């Protein structure tokens, strides 16, 4: 396989893996944890908690 094609294949595999991970994360409910953290003021982030 040409080096350029190998690079493209790697990029495609990485993107597929990324979307797979993302959907697994959503399925596991991780986005809800992110949401719950983000809609409340994060006291640690602002230096109070």
């Amino acid at each position, binding site marked *: 396989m040409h080096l350029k094609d190998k690079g493209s294949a790697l*990029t495609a595999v990485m993107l597929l893996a*990324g979307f797979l*991970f993302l959907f697994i994360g959503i399925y596991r409910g*991780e986005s809800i*944890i*992110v949401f719950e953290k983000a809609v409340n*003021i*994060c006291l640690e982030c*602002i*230096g109070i908690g």
Partner: protein
Amino acid sequence: MVKNKNGNDGFRHIIQAVWTLITNAYIIGFIRGKIYQGKIKNVCVPGLNCYSCPGAVASCPIGALQAVIGSYEYKFSFYIAGFFIIIGTLMGRFVCGYLCPFGLFQDLLNKIPLKFKINSFKYDKILRYLKYCILIIFVILMPIFITDIIGQGFPWFCKLICPAGTLEGGLPLVALNDAMKSAVGFLYGWKCFILIAVVILSVIIYRPFCKYVCPLGAIYSLFNPISAFKYRINTDKCINCNMCANICKMGCNPVENPNSMECIRCGKCRSICPEEAIEYTFFNSHKNR
């Protein structure tokens, strides 16, 4: 051919500013001293943008990562790992150069004219590894292992280090919200001290936070050599004049390594090159100017 050494900086700063406004578009939050609580807050922005900024309409990926792996339910975040893989594979540290509000903040500070500017110093190269240590220790290990009695960890990077949180969240919320004002203590002072240090250093050194501290930059840097967006040197055109290496404020040498982990894709090297020998590719499709 004499070229403008600021290159495409003006265009880049416009993109940075527009992106900062889009991702912090909840203007009413700055008036009320409250944060946005809409549904898109479960989505992350690519850059370092505190979700406790009154204007923030989405989440900070570093904060979100610590929130998930610090929860008692999960010790690995597929959601955030997937997000990093997608963004990193597409853009690498292009995010740092174009889509990070805290990067824009440092860029602007570095424009303050000062005779005493430092491009490189003795421990510069070694200090670049500090951001990987901060990523592993403060963003990953501490939220997982230092927990309360129910197994809930804290976002230690946000709590102890992140100056973006102080700038975007801490300062406006404390200024606008009386309850927050009354709760200010030592930690707030410590975080303000870090922010002031970053501000002063940013005037002297180009993007010190990105170079030495930022865990998000550390993550994206791992993707720079393999990302879809890449630089490449046209060796037929390159005359080895070294102008690209001399202009680079991140200390990269594009001729030696056009996809260095430190390159934030600011494009200064491309702009200064007299032979237009630095080209970029996206998914290996060659683009010129």
